């Protein structure tokens, strides 16, 4: 088991190295002199000269990558041209907001997706199966920013139940925080619930025809026990792995959701940085997002490993 863990952890290192090269390479896409572009609209000669020296722009590309990655490994992701703050500080400031949104969205997705998938598989061919499949199709086909706008129209403008935008820290006022986050979390969780429902349905259909489920039924166990204790437990392992792939959708979706609901998180940071031409922040956010995604997938693999006794032995 320990060997498996070490191998799996080691396997992410080459991926991280290539990801860092890709993100560093983004800078090469900038048309013209990166120092002038990174210096912003004013293009102050002092700033341009400072950036040229800081980014080692007179050195060959591999040497520049070496300097950049050396800084990254020490936590130096560069500096925001706009606010002069270190990129890492900016990212860490925004991260908790997005993490809260993502956790709430995932909770909603799990609460909708897994029961809907179970109902759909158990009642295969019934009206419940059709309803669940239609809902899944709706979920994967609806752009989340449109769903967000529709929900604002209904719950904020028409009914006046929930705030249309803004963010309150849970440490300041938990009620106001949840009121502000419930719509964005639902919008973000909606598409993931649809995908989870499809995975759950497919995994449940597979295990429901397995011998041990037939044996459990033959023993006279209630259908509830057979479905929840025998079938679902075995169906959960592929759901964990496939569900982990949706973490990327979660991070991507957060960008749009935060934009619609004006939530000051990670997604809003990357969009604001794009329009402020604050490229170091864009690079930093992409690097942190990719690293988070890789680590979360690693954790999902480990959870899969822990949940499956056959692998452990």
């Amino acid at each position, binding site marked *: 088991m320990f060997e498996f863990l070490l191998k799996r952890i080691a396997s992410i290192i*080459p*991926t*991280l190295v*290539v*990801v860092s*090269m*890709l*993100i560093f390479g*983004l*800078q090469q*896409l*900038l*048309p013209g002199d990166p120092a002038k572009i990174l210096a912003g609209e004013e293009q102050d000669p002092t700033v341009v000269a400072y950036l040229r020296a800081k980014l080692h722009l007179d050195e060959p590309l591999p040497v520049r990558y070496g300097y950049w990655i050396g800084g990254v490994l020490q936590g130096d992701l560069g500096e925001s041209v706009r606010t002069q703050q270190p990129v890492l500080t900016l990212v860490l400031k925004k991260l908790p907001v997005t993490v809260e949104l993502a956790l709430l969205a995932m909770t909603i997705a799990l609460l909708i997706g897994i029961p809907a998938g179970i109902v759909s598989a158990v009642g295969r061919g019934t009206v419940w199966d059709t309803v669940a499949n239609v809902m899944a*199709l*709706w979920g*994967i*086909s*609806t*752009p989340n*920013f*449109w769903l967000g*706008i*529709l929900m*604002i*129209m209904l719950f*904020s*403008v028409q009914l006046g139940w929930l705030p*249309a935008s803004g963010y309150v820290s849970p440490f300041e006022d938990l009620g106001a925080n949840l009121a502000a986050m419930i719509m964005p979390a639902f919008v973000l969780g909606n598409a993931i619930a649809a995908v989870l429902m499809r995975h759950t349905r497919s995994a449940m259909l597979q295990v429901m025809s397995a011998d041990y489920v037939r044996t459990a039924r033959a023993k006279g166990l209630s259908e509830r026990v057979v479905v929840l204790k025998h079938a679902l437990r075995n169906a959960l392992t592929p759901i964990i792995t496939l569900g982990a792939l949706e973490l*990327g*959708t979660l*991070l*991507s*979706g957060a*960008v*749009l959701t935060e*934009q*619609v609901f004006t939530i000051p998180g990670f997604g809003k940071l*990357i*969009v604001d940085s*794009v*329009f402020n031409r604050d*490229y170091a922040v*864009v*690079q930093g*956010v*992409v690097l942190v*997002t*990719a690293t988070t*995604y*890789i680590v979360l*997938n690693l954790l999902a693999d480990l959870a899969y490993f822990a949940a499956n006794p056959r692998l452990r032995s």
Partner: protein
Amino acid sequence: MARLTASPSRLAWRRFARRRAALLGVAIVLSFIVLALGASWIAPLDPIATSWGAIRKAPSAAHWFGTDEIGRDVLSRVIWGTRASLLAGVVSVSISLLLGVPIGLAAGFMGGAVDTVISRITDAFLACPFLILAIALAAFLGPSLSNAMIAIGVSATPIFVRLTRAQVINVKVEDYIEAARAVGNPPWRIALRHVLPNITAPLIVQATLAIAAAVIAEASLSFLGLGQQPPAPSWGSMLNTAKNYVDNAPWMAIWPGLSIFLLVLAFNLVGDGLRDALDPRQR
């Protein structure tokens, strides 16, 4: 007897035609194609003509879908916006196919160091969430519809690399490939004439579903201001403006959003139908 002699493609078509949802998807996609191609004849008004006397007018006989914040006809903008969305969907996925299939073919067919290098790069691309990578690429390339299509196409390429590679690895051990090798065919000929035609079914399914994802991605980039630039109409940028007027002009948000939803739904229905028809094992 006719059933026994039917070709695999005819059988697949029969399976596809039996799925009413998939046929509905085809009908919706075709309707959008007609709208996109005939926008200049079908749209009742100029999509960028402003009218200060008709600002944020509710739907009426003169403006079926209402008008926007500077008096432009929403219906005409929705019809013209079809072009940007369909173009983005088709061009982005074409870029992904043109890049991804040859690279995946090389990785799967050649194996060894080539496969290792390609797989590592693919893993790295896949480690960056799709839309975030597309946003970063579009940001560094500069905001425009063509750059958004390049960004989406490049970001979706790894999916096709991985799919092609996996299919090639499965197919290359088949007897007919061994036979093609035994009669002295060069590797490139085996890859193009014998492997590629046998892996097209999953690629067609993935491409159809990828168009749905690309339409949403283009709308997302335009919503963020990184796709189609104003005043040219695009469903995503229309929604971006509409979100500021939800309380007094809800029609500005309803129609472009509904159009994105319908087009994406249609491609998803066609993709699901194709998957069932071309690869019944996945049903």
